[in-house]
């Protein structure tokens, strides 16, 4: 598609698929990932992790390990606790939520298999691992509480004896007359139970940290593979009891995050504590095995849901009951309540829905902690609602597309709100659905499915209409007391050579943040993009702000960049006007020059202007500040979130004898508001779709009954690979958000949010003539065979 740009001029970059400037550097192998960094006197950490899901630690004998060659120190939970306070992962606005203090290393009781228990610091990682083998820990195994439903039983052993049950948080919503809607004459009511397995983020670069404490300055520098440097700075300062300003967090290249790298991890925190204790740099890089055992897991829901339509096909009520297992602690500082909260907040969001009832229970269990991962809660909410829509369509003899048409919020109905109180503006569900049906040639595809069914070939189409929460305001975390900024800041300055330097508090994880920042600055400043230099990720350098999460980079950090660049532009024009003895409105910026606004005739190059300001300030008119720098911050006001919307379709073939699912087609129409860089947006959507398909068909953290993670390798935990994936067709509808001047909404999570539901609906469409139904993800071949009664 073509994107309209505001200015069709030499330096129009907003809306263009500009290649990422940093891609070349990474492809040259010049990445600066944490593990690439080697500091003088640096040591390496390795962790002994609990082999039990639940066990009392009776005795730790590390004497032999201490005397191993190369070993510098061995720390257990009590040692680290001397310098680091435990943390509590609750948000006050999720009222009633509770979670006990969590130490960096387990003390007294280990509560998941993989929880760090002892840390060895040595001259090399290999030496540290050799020493781990010599540590003796005596455990008294306790009964593991793994199944989240069983964990709620009154007789279930309590994971935290100080709490009266294993319930972390419960929330209920009731709006409208739900019971009456279900009881109404002529209503079509369907009810389904869903199970969504646990999966995890599997970043290409695992979690990594170098902690570098300098006692001379009482300063701690953390080289960090993560998403939110300022949040980490606050967390570290608080729990190491240091002034925040003495903690510096530097996140340079990051090899993927997906929400995995935005939480407080005991092993990372212990590494920081160790550096402080040893007064030396200490590196910890998670290996793949410990990534599976300690990176946050995601999803893990058991849901019962009902929905009803009236005789006309109009949605009258939805009811949902969600139990979600979060491991033994609510994760700090974002809490593990947001995932479930999003599920009940977003279910039914695309539709006009008069009555809604929900119950959420967030449950402790002895598994790896669960927390926010790409598309937090969305894939569950969308899969449940869209699954019910398809079932209601089938039960009432309607085409699934037709039923959606009947019920989608109208494009001219905004602003509006859902029964849950979600406030919507600038959405385009109807336009997206129509565009999708057109793009995929829905009618022809339907006919093909029907024809092939006569020949014993089982193909199905799955549709999803969806919303995505993006650009959150302070209502997300800040109100709950977490040290998490909802605003982001940008600064921009012109140097003496006329080059533009920008910095921003949003971070680069491989998604192209730095590219869009450069695009925005270059366009506003009227310079070639190659003269823009971007810095992100360093708390000592960049303005204070939230970082990268919740699809907020472009919408919030990008808008701050836009405003900052506009401010500097005004400064430059004012300065130039003074020098050229004209008025700022008569001037403009183009191709690195101050130009005449009407004729675009060059008046003075930016470099000359900058040199005059910086070197020969004496030539400037009286009262003109010798500065060419501006900063702006931006937060979303008036709306708690900027919702985006989209529609997605999947086309699959199921082999009923083997249960194998073949993906034949996937289409996405997404409205991300103003598109800053279409290629980057499409990459986000495609990558997200692939992760969503991973959850739908492949990825699952498999546990034994006693809480042992069974598939903690890349051979056994199946991420989707290129061979399994297919072309993903993308189109856009553009409705800019009213909350900012740029009008960009978020794009990072939509693919993941919608894809699982689309694939599940497609599989169920294929299975329907065989009388089978899938409601468990991932939909493995064996589960499909079971649903078909073949095994």
């Amino acid at each position: 598609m073509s994107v309209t740009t505001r200015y069709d001029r030499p330096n129009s970059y907003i809306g263009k698929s500009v290649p990422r400037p940093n891609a070349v550097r990474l492809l040259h192998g010049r990445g600066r990932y944490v593990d690439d960094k080697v500091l003088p006197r640096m040591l390496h950490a390795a962790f002994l992790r609990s082999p039990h899901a639940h066990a009392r630690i009776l005795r730790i004998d590390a004497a032999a390990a201490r005397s191993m060659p190369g070993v510098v120190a061995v720390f257990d939970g009590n040692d680290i606790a001397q310098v680091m306070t435990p943390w509590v992962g609750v948000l006050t606005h999720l009222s009633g939520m509770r979670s006990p203090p969590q130490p960096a290393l387990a003390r007294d009781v280990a509560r998941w298999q993989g929880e760090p228990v002892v840390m060895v610091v040595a001259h090399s990682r290999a030496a540290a691992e050799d020493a781990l083998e010599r540590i003796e820990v005596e455990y008294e195994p306790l009964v593991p509480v793994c199944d989240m439903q069983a964990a709620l039983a009154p007789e279930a052993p309590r994971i935290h004896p100080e709490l009266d049950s294993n319930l972390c948080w419960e929330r209920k919503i009731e709006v409208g007359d739900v019971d009456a809607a279900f009881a109404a004459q002529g209503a079509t009511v369907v009810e389904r139970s869903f199970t969504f397995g646990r999966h995890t983020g599997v970043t290409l670069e695992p979690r990594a940290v170098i902690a570098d404490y300098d006692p001379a300055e009482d300063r701690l520098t953390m080289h960090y593979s993560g998403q939110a440097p300022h949040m980490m700075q606050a967390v570290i300062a608080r729990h190491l009891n240091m002034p925040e300003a003495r903690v510096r967090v530097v996140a340079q290249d990051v090899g993927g995050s997906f929400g995995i790298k935005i939480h407080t991890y005991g092993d990372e925190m212990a590494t920081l504590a160790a550096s402080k204790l040893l007064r030396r740099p200490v590196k910890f890089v998670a290996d793949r095995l410990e990534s599976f055992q300690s990176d946050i897991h995601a999803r893990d829901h058991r849901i019962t849901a009902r929905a009803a339509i009236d005789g006309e096909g109009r949605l009258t009520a939805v009811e949902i009951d969600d139990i979600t297992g979060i491991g033994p602690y609510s994760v700090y500082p974002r809490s593990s309540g947001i995932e479930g909260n999003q599920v009940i907040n977003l279910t039914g969001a695309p539709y006009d829905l008069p009555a809604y009832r929900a119950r959420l229970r967030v449950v402790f269990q002895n598994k790896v902690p669960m927390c926010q991962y790409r598309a937090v809660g969305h894939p569950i909410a969308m899969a449940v609602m869209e699954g019910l829509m398809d079932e209601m369509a089938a039960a009432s003899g309607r085409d699934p597309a037709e039923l959606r048409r009947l019920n989608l919020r109208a494009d001219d109905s905004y602003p509006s709100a859902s029964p849950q109180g979600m406030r919507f503006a600038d959405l385009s569900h109807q336009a997206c659905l129509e565009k999708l049906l057109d793009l995929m040639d829905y009618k022809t595809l339907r006919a093909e499915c029907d024809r092939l069914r006569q020949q014993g070939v089982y193909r199905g189409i799955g549709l999803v209409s969806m919303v995505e929460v993006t650009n959150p305001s302070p209502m997300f975390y800040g109100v709950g007391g977490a040290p998490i900024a909802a605003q982001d800041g940008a600064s921009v300055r012109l140097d003496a050579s006329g080059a533009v330097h920008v910095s921003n508090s949003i971070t680069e994880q491989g998604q192209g943040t730095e590219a869009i920042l450069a695009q925005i600055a270059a366009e506003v400043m009227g310079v070639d993009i190659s003269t823009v230099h971007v810095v992100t990720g360093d708390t000592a350098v960049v303005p204070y702000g939230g970082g990268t999460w919740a699809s907020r980079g472009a919408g919030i950090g990008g808008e701050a960049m836009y405003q900052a660049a506009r401010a500097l532009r005004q400064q430059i024009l004012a300065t130039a006007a003074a020098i050229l003895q004209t008025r700022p409105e008569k001037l403009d910026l183009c191709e690195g020059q101050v130009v005449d606004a009407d004729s675009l005739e060059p008046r003075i190059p930016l470099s000359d202007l900058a040199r005059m300001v910086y070197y020969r300030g004496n030539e400037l008119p009286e009262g003109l500040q010798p500065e060419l720098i501006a900063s702006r911050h931006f937060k979303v006001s008036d709306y708690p979130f900027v919702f985006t919307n989209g529609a997605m379709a999947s086309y699959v073939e199921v082999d009923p004898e083997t249960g194998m699912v073949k993906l034949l087609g996937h289409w996405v129409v997404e409205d991300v508001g103003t598109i800053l860089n279409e290629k980057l947006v499409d990459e986000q959507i495609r990558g997200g779709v692939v992760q969503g398909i991973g959850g739908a068909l492949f990825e699952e953290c498999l546990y034994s009954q006693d809480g042992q993670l069974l598939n903690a390798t890349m051979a056994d935990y199946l991420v989707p690979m290129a061979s399994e994936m297919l072309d993903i067709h993308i189109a856009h509808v553009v409705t800019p958000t009213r909350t900012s001047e740029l009008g960009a909404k978020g794009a990072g999570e939509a693919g993941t949010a919608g894809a699982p539901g689309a694939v599940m609906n497609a599989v169920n469409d294929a299975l329907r003539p065989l009388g089978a139904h899938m409601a468990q993800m991932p939909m493995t071949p064996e589960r499909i065979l079971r649903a078909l009664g073949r095994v």
Partner: protein
Amino acid sequence: MKSSSFAYRRAATAEEAVALAREAGEDARFLAGGQSLLAALNFRLDEPCMLIDIGRIGALRGIRRVEGALKIGALTRHAEIAASVEIAKHLPLVAQAIHEVAHPAIRNRGTFGGSIALADAAAEMPACALALGARMHLLGPDGPRRVAADEFFLGLYETALEPGELLTHVEIPIPPAGACHGFAELARRRGDYAMAGLAMMLGPRTGAGRDWARIVFFGIADRAVRSPSAEAAIVAGAAPEECAACATDGLDVFGDMNAAESTKRHYAAVLLRRELDRISDEENRV
């Protein structure tokens, strides 16, 4: 994880490799392509005292035509098998199956002999060796010996190889005219070890039946296993569904994370029926 420390020696000849292994004792390992061994080391699942690198022994590499057979050097890479004209011409079963072994990068390093010596229960090459009646050429401290495939694969990662014994070649008889092959596997992702797989050779047609049949399943038991019941049914000329129905009769089948025992039995039957149907369709067409 990092592997624990070990000594490293490189052998120039097969004899030297065997001599080094004898000196080092039971805890030494031959290092071929390293695609399985190094992973085991890095998980510290195996902590050998010494690796004896056989990767540069030229005599163990390559495919040669001998009397009625192809002789495949143990160090021949999977990728070389896949590119071999001789293999494509004489052993189409191997030629087809090799593409299902892992991914290109792994096939560039992994070796045919390593696959046979490792004897993973779900690996393709052991199953093909069994279906084709291969003979393994071994070299030990007491000299060379030969073991038939039927006697070579003994259990989970267990073979007739004695500690310190080196697999030097695999000799595979070229199937007679009129014989045909079948191959199929089910893996959740391309290149993964199979949930269930089938490698089979059928002798020339005799009436409705076959002169002989070697039906091998992989990924369902502790090793690649022949199915005597299916072989008997095929030789007797039973219909594909009937052959499939007894596919795993009498076999010890084990489930894994991707497929329970019953699912594996089901898969074995489906794979066999489909391949038999395909072969009979193709033969009827000619």
